[in-house]
Each structure stands twice: as structure tokens, then as C-alpha cells.
């Protein structure tokens, strides 16, 4: 037994000593032909695009959202009819001579002889115009009085209707010996002038009263001379009746660029259901006006388009009248008068004309004051001398489109997108999924192809106008309550991906054909709440690049 231990010991020792060296291990890391193909599926994005976004993206100041949510193009032109000549305050300059002896002077107890005379300062002599009063903004009076030589007299000049702080202008002079000539200048800005009317002569005037107490003897030839001038008279506010006057603005124009982006050959594929022209008058003059918008016509003058001109007919006529009420005032604040007029499909041929895709509206605007009013109607005029008339064209997104086609080119620099990494060749297939929930009233067909830098077609991604989005069904109010669901996918094979890289794809062309819901029988409306919701996801099978 004891000898058993030694062999056992040796055997175990040999086992321990037999440390095995195995064959070399060569690990293949370059699995170019051998890589596993893995699947990657993932959601990319949920994109919500609304009518509101449409307005935002258009970045066009004319593209707006109406109160009812309907998208709308609005083009507004402010037209000012100048009424600078509605109130004309004439300069006045006259020399008056007064012979006291002929005026039946009165003897007074102190031995002086008193006599007086009154003259008119006429501001206006139009028959149909009457000025009642005015607050003076600017104005100057000067007069020069000359008495006979060696006069000894006391002269009082009163302008009772020119009030300075409520008090009539009054001037006092004393003549004695050689001191017989007096000059007076007065800046009457800020004063109030009460005017009188000489109906028979259609004059608005204020009076100048001269009273003289004369000491001494007067002869027949002794005269009092007054040179009186009123100039630069401008009103802060004037009251009266401004008469029947006319002012006009010819060829007032609104330009709109709505059709600039639309291919000229395809404009007849889009038609508008309704649009309107709004006429808004804002009158800060206290005078009613009758405005005639005449010779209203649409023009088409843009490049690459046949020119054209069409008359706008309103109830069969090529003009329209708008009565604009005068402004009101409480003495401190002016409350403008206004008037609005709308032209739409119900009272004009505006829709028919607009479907010729014009780019300009031109008209003549003539206004008449106090049309239909007599001189008892009180007018006023402040600082505003323009009658503002805004013309606005409203083009709501209420249209029909039947296979409206457009082509857009977007950048698709494939090598830049993939960092020019040839590992992209490991992609066996790439499927991009679009799941749409459409509350826009559009059907969309799409063809997409890829171009190289020389615009050669490399490949078609979507061929033959694939039907990608289906229109929702609008209700009677134009709203789409139930979204229309459609799905489509873009599949790229490995061959395509390799081709895009090798042939250096640079751009992608999207040929879009859009039709609205039931284009032959209905028009659709696009609201700010209209939306297209899309879920974008992908599935890709790709070989992993080698380590």
C-alpha cells in the first residue's frame, strides 16, 4: 500500500504539469460579408401642422386669420382724399377812409365831437359756404390809423368778434398835434372769432368798430384812414357750413401678390368661391361726404402672364356710392364718422373677376361734401383735412382645386446627410412610414425623384403620383370633424441607397398634385384649426459595420 502513494503522486503531478496550450485563436473582426443584420424600428416624430402654422410659415403679412378662424388674404390700401381746400380763409387787406363830418357826429358835454364807424373783415365769399366761428391756430392782424394833421382826439378800436380770453380786442390811442398816426399789430393765435354772415352777399365776416372823440374843428376833407390787414389765418377748429365741394383721388390702386407663387399654367386649376372688397371710410372732418368709387377695374399685369382688364360690376354698375357721415365733437375730442360697404358674390361679379387671377385693383374715388344737406346742417373742421378711405380685398381660403400641380425642389445632399460614410451601404432596406390623420380638405398625390448635381435623375423614390393623403369630409360649415386616416410608406433598397451615395444625390424633387374635396361640386374652407397630423416612423434592416 505504501508504494501506491508514489505512483498516485506522480500521476497527479503529471496532470498538473500538463498545462495545455491550445491552438491560436484568430478572431475575425472584419465581418464585411458576415455581419449580422439587425432590425431597427422606431418612431421618429409626430408632426402637427395646422392652418395657423400655414399662416405662420407663409410669412406674408397679408395672410391672416379671420375672427371665425377662416384663413384669409387681406390686401389693404389706404387712400386719402385731401380736403385742404374745404375751408379757405382769405387774407384780408383794405384801406378804409372815413369822413367824420359826413357821419353826423355828436357833440358831447366835454366839448368833443364823437363819431364812429364800422367796417367788415371778410373771410369768405363763397355762396354755399358759411363760417360761424373759429378757434384761431394762426393769424395776424395789423392796422394803421391816420388822423388829420394836428388832431386832438381819443380813438378806440374794437374788434368785438375777436375774443381774447372772452374779451373783445380793444385798442385805445390818443392823438395830439403831430402824433396823429398809430400802428397796431396783433397775433391772434389762440383767440376765438365769432363771425357774422351777410346772407345777401354770402360773406362771413367780423367787424372792426372805430370810435373817435375829436377835440377841435373838422373840415369836410378831414378823413380818418385805416389800413387793415388780416393774414395767415388758419383755424384750429372752425364751425359753419362748408358748402358743396368736390375732391377726388384718381387711379387709387391695390396691388396683391397672391398669385405670384402659382405657376401661370396652373392657375385655372384653382378657383375661389368667395371674396369681398371692403370699403371703409373714416371721416375725421365734421362734414358728411358722399363718396363715389368709380371705374372699378381689375388688372393683370405681371410678367409671363397675358395682360387683362376687367370691370367690377356692382348690381350692374361700375361704381358704387358710399355716404360717409361727418365726425362729431364734444368740443374737446373728435369722434370720427364712418361708413362701410362690402362687395361680394351676392352683389357684384367680384368672384368671376378674381378667378381671372388679377394682381391689381384700380378705381377713382370722388367725394362731395354735404351732399343732400342744406346750410342749416352744422359742419366743423379741425386739423384733419383728409378723408381716409381704406379699400381692402378679402380673399378667404375658400377654394376649389382640381389637380393643382406644383413642383418643389428641396435639398437632399445624401453624402452630407450621411457624413459620406460608406457604412451606409450596410443598410439592407429602409422603410419610412407616414400615418396621416387629415383634417385638411385636400387629396394629395405625390411623385418624388432624386437628382444629382447636374439635375440628372438618379432614381424615383415615389413613382406615378402615388395617392398619399386623402381629404377629410367637411360638414356644412366647412369643418372637418373626423380625420381621414391614410398611410403610406417609402421603401428604399440597398441598391438605391448605394446609388444615392455613389451618384452623389443632391436634390429631391417633389411633384405634388393637390385636389380639394369633391372639386367639381364643392369648395372647401381652410380654418386655423384645420390640421394634418402625421406619425412618422421607420423600420430599417442593416448589417452592423465591422469592429
Amino acid at each position, binding site marked *: 500500500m505504501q508504494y501506491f502513494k508514489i505512483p498516485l503522486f506522480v500521476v497527479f503531478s503529471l496532470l498538473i504539469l500538463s498545462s495545455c*496550450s491550445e491552438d491560436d485563436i484568430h478572431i475575425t473582426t472584419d465581418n464585411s460579408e458576415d455581419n449580422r443584420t439587425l432590425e431597427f424600428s422606431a418612431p421618429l416624430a409626430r408632426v402637427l401642422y395646422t392652418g395657423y402654422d400655414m399662416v405662420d410659415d407663409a410669412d406674408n403679412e397679408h395672410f391672416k386669420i379671420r375672427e371665425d378662424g377662416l384663413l384669409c388674404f387681406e390686401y389693404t390700401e389706404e387712400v386719402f382724399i385731401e380736403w385742404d381746400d374745404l375751408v379757405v380763409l382769405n387774407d384780408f387787406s383794405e384801406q378804409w377812409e372815413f369822413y367824420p363830418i359826413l357821419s353826423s357826429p355828436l357833440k358831447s358835454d366835454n366839448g368833443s365831437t364823437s363819431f364812429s364807424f364800422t367796417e367788415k373783415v371778410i373771410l369768405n365769399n363763397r355762396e354755399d359756404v358759411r363760417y360761424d366761428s373759429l378757434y384761431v391756430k394762426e393769424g395776424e392782424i395789423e392796422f394803421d390809423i391816420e388822423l388829420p394833421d394836428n388832431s386832438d382826439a381819443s380813438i378806440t378800436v374794437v374788434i368785438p368778434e375777436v375774443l381774447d380770453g372772452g374779451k373783445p380786442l380793444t385798442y385805445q390811442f390818443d392823438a395830439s398835434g403831430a402824433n396823429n398816426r398809430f400802428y397796431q399789430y396783433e397775433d391772434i393765435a389762440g383767440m376765438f372769432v365769432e363771425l357774422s354772415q351777410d346772407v345777401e352777399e354770402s360773406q362771413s365776416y367780423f367787424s372792426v368798430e372805430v370810435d373817435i372823440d375829436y377835440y377841435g374843428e373838422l373840415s369836410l376833407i378831414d378823413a380818418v384812414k385805416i389800413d387793415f390787414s388780416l393774414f395767415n389765418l388758419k383755424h384750429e377748429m372752425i364751425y359753419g357750413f362748408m358748402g358743396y365741394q368736390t375732391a377726388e383721388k384718381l387711379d387709387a390702386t391695390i396691388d396683391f401678390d397672391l398669385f405670384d407663387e402659382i405657376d401661370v399654367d396652373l392657375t385655372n386649376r384653382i378657383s375661389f368661391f368667395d371674396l369681398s372688397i371692403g370699403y371703409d371710410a373714416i371721416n375725421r372732418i365734421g362734414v358728411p361726404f358722399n363718396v363715389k368709387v368709380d371705374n372699378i377695374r381689375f388688372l393683370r399685369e405681371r410678367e409671363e402672364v397675358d395682360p387683362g382688364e376687367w370691370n367690377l360690376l356692382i348690381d350692374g354698375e361700375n361704381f358704387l356710392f358710399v355716404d360717409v357721415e361727418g365726425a362729431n365733437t364734444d368740443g374737446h375730442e373728435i369722434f370720427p364718422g364712418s361708413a362701410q360697404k362690402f362687395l361680394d358674390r351676392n352683389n357684384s361679379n367680384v368672384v368671376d373677376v378674381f378667378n381671372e387671377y388679377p394682381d391689381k385693383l384700380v378705381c377713382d374715388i370722388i367725394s362731395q361734401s354735404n351732399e343732400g344737406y342744406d346750410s342749416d346742417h352744422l359742419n366743423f373742421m379741425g386739423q384733419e383735412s383728409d378723408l381716409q378711405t381704406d379699400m381692402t380685398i378679402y380673399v378667404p381660403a375658400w377654394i376649389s382645386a382640381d389637380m393643382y400641380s406644383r413642383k418643389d425642389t428641396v435639398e437632399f445632399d445624401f453624402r452630407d446627410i450621411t457624413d459620406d460614410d460608406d457604412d451606409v451601404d450596410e443598410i439592407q432596406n429602409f422603410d419610412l412610414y407616414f400615418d396621416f390623420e387629415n383634417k385638411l380638405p385636400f387629396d394629395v398625390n405625390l411623385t418624388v425623384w432624386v437628382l444629382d448635381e447636374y439635375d440628372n435623375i438618379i432614381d424615383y423614390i415615389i413613382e406615378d403620383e402615388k395617392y398619399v393623403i386623402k381629404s377629410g369630409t367637411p360638414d356644412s360649415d366647412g369643418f372637418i370633424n373626423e380625420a381621414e386616416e391614410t398611410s403610406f410608406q417609402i421603401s428604399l433598397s440597398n441598391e438605391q441607397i448605394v446609388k444615392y451615395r455613389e451618384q452623389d444625390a443632391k436634390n429631391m424633387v417633389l411633384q405634388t398634385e393637390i385636389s380639394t374635396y369633391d372639386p367639381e361640386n364643392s369648395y372647401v374652407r381652410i380654418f386655423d384649426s384645420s390640421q394634418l397630423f402625421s406619425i412618422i416612423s421607420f423600420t430599417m434592416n442593416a448589417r452592423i459595420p465591422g469592429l
Partner: protein
Amino acid sequence: MQIRLLIILLTLLALSIFKVKAQSPNALYYLETIPQTSRINPAMQPRANGFFALPSVNQLFQSDVAFRDIFQDTGDDWVTPLSSRYDYSDLYRVTGSTLYLNEYLDVDLFGLGFRSGRDYFTFALSFKNVTEIGFPSDLFKITEKGFADGETFNLSTMRLNQIAYKELSFGYSREFTDKLTAGINVKPIFGMVGGKTDINRLELQTNRTHYDMIVDGTIYSSAPIIVEEGEPGDFPEDIRDKELEDDDIVDYFTWFKNPGVGFDLGAVYDYSDQWSFSFALNNLGFISWNEDLNSLSFNGEYRFDGLNVDGSNKDDLDEAVDDIVDSIKTVIHYDTGHKSFNSSLTPSLYFGAEYNLTNSISFGALSRTVFQKYSTRQDFNLSANLQPYSFVALNLNYSVRVNGSNGMGTGLTFLAGPLQIYMLADYIPLKHATVYMDDDEFTMFPEQQDFSFKFGLNFIFGRHGYSDEPMLVR
């Protein structure tokens, strides 16, 4: 005599050239000359009447996968998991639901033991570090299949358990009868730093139109870190290390906080002079962590269905991406706190049978079952134990792990006066190969999954053994 000496020297020389690595102490189980056997089976009484243990080191590394599992031999060449020729079923066979990587480090500072009649008393102080990392096998689906439509990744078995603790072991063994010896180790434990994950559910479902992530779990830590809480329900504002002074570091090693307890139970039954059977159940216990506590609970379901793009962010998708990050933070409910938690020790169950051929030669069979969350590790071991002389003992063994590796092990103890030197190694990497990978060349043990190594010194008293069991039978 000269032949024996030559063989012994050659054996020692052979052993010395091996690159011994750490090994579970299968070899230790039947090496009764090493007093540390009582650490495995508290019933086993060392041969020595008394001993004083000097510092020793035990390093154990376990992996569910070997090099040959990660890189597969197809016959023509070896391929990576990215190759279409790679067979993932082979990989899943070895990993199961979870791929575990475990690392155990024991540093025994000192120990002692002595016999008193039928009783044997032992004491030991040691520092232990346990790192257990579990990777859910579903992670490999990523390189196997990708993120396919309709796929589910169950990551609930993801696990991290890291504990460092001090252990005092008080052992007692008694020969109740001539045949039956039983023993117990009572081990007060004091945790130093610890952390663990407790994940109830962690799942990722991938679909073309949406990804769903479902999370429910808690991370616990007892460590010098600072967590700055954010808004209730939100992820913490900041998590950073606490700056420690030297005294603070010393505290971690010397304090008696984070208490716990462990138990080892064992029994040996000498059926006859030749046969004996043994049983041991180790590491029943836990640590209760209540110092430096931080916990982070997360619960929620998050669905990613793509970037949400609308009019508000279509020109700057960074905002849409930020929204996703923010929503993950808000949809997932976070709850920070300072909850105390327990760490369970990893119990092991041993069954052994030994046949004593002579007083100096025995053969042993051992079954070891290690119970780990989501995984049970089963080893079988056959050994031959030789003690040709009183000053030297040798163990040769062969271990096989179910769904794992297998390999040779050995143990050697040598007495020089009262000083005993011992070295033990399991799953010795006997097979090696030169690996060529790209431009690199290195040596690898392709089938290695486990290795352990233990080395130590003891002072042995009464080292000549029993008078009726001479060291050498002639």
C-alpha cells in the same frame, strides 16, 4: 528517499510555474491541516490543537461566461457577437436570464483557535468586499436582433450588489459523539459601505410607432455621497461624493455601525473509519444599513412616440428633444429618501463525502450550491487529499460547474516549524491560447469562468496531529 524528494521538488516546481488565480476554496474543504477549514464547515476541527492566523488574502472571481462564450469558434475561425454565424442560443444557455459577474475579496486580519477537550473554539476578524453584478440577458438581444418591432427587453434582472464589511467570526465545534461533530460560526457583521439595486420591473418594449419603458425599483446606498433633492417627484439635482478627511476614512474601517449577523452551520458524520459525510450551510445572514443612507426610488411608465413637432418648435427641434428629456424626468416619478435597507449575504450549501484510503490519502466529493438572486450556482468537485508527511499536505481536485466551466484545482500547505504556509487555487486555467485580434496579440484562457486564490500564514501549535493518526503511514 531520493526519488521521493525528487518527485516532491518537481511537483512544487510545477506548481510554482502555474499562473494560479483565485479559486473558491474547494481545495480547502478537505485540507484539515489548514485551520481555515472551519470557516467553510464550522464542524470541521483543525488537526492543530491551537493556531494563530496571520493575515491572509482570498480572491474569488466568478463569471457566467468565458472567453469562448463571448467569441465563438465556428470551426473556420472565431467570430464576434456581431457575426451572422454567432449562435446566441449557446450564449443564452450559459447566461440564463442573467449574466453574473461576481468578485469576492476577503482579507483576514487575524484569527485564532484552540481545542478544549471535545470542543474547538475559533475567532477571526476579516474585511470582506462583495461585488455582484447582474446583466440581464435580454441586453444581448440588441446585437442579436436589434430594436425590432414588437420586441420586449426584460431588464428586470439587472442587479448590482456591492458591500464592504467587517466580520468577526466566533466559531464553536463539538464532538458530540465519536461519529458526529457539529459546529456553528456566529459572525457579527458591521457594514462599511454598501449599495444595491432592488428592481421590481425594468422593461423596454419597442414598436415601430412607440417605445414603452416601464420602471419600478429602488437604489439604496450607504456611502459617503451627497444627494441634492430637487422638486418632489423629480430626479435629484445633484449626486456627488462627500469629501472625506483621513479621520473619516478611518472611521469607516473602525466603526461598529450598520450591524448585521451571519451564521455558518455544519456537521460531520463519521460513518465508518473510511467514510465520512458532511454538510454545511454558510452565510445565512444580513446587514442592516442605517448610516449614510440615500435611496432613489423610481416608478413610472414612459412612452416615446417620436418628437412632438408643431408650430411652436418646428424651427428648433432642440426644444422638442428637451421636451423628451423633461418628460422622462416628470413622467417617471422619483422619490429620494434615506431609507434603511438590508443586504443579504450569499448563502452556500455544501454536501461532502470523503473516503479515507489511508491515514494520509483520502478522496473527497463535494457539492456546493451558491444561492444568488435570479441565479443558483452549482459546483461539483472531486478531490484527492495527500499528506505524505506531517509537514506537507496536498490537495488535487477537479471542479465542474453546471452551465459553467470546469477545471483543476490544488492546494498546498507546508509547515516550517510552527509556521504554516498555504496556497490554494481552484479552476486553475490549464488551457491557454494566443489570441490574435486586429493588430493585437495576447494570451487568453478561453474556457476560464471562475478562478480563486487563497494564500495565508498560520502559526500551528500541536501540529503533529493525533497520536492515533500518524502523519505518514508506512
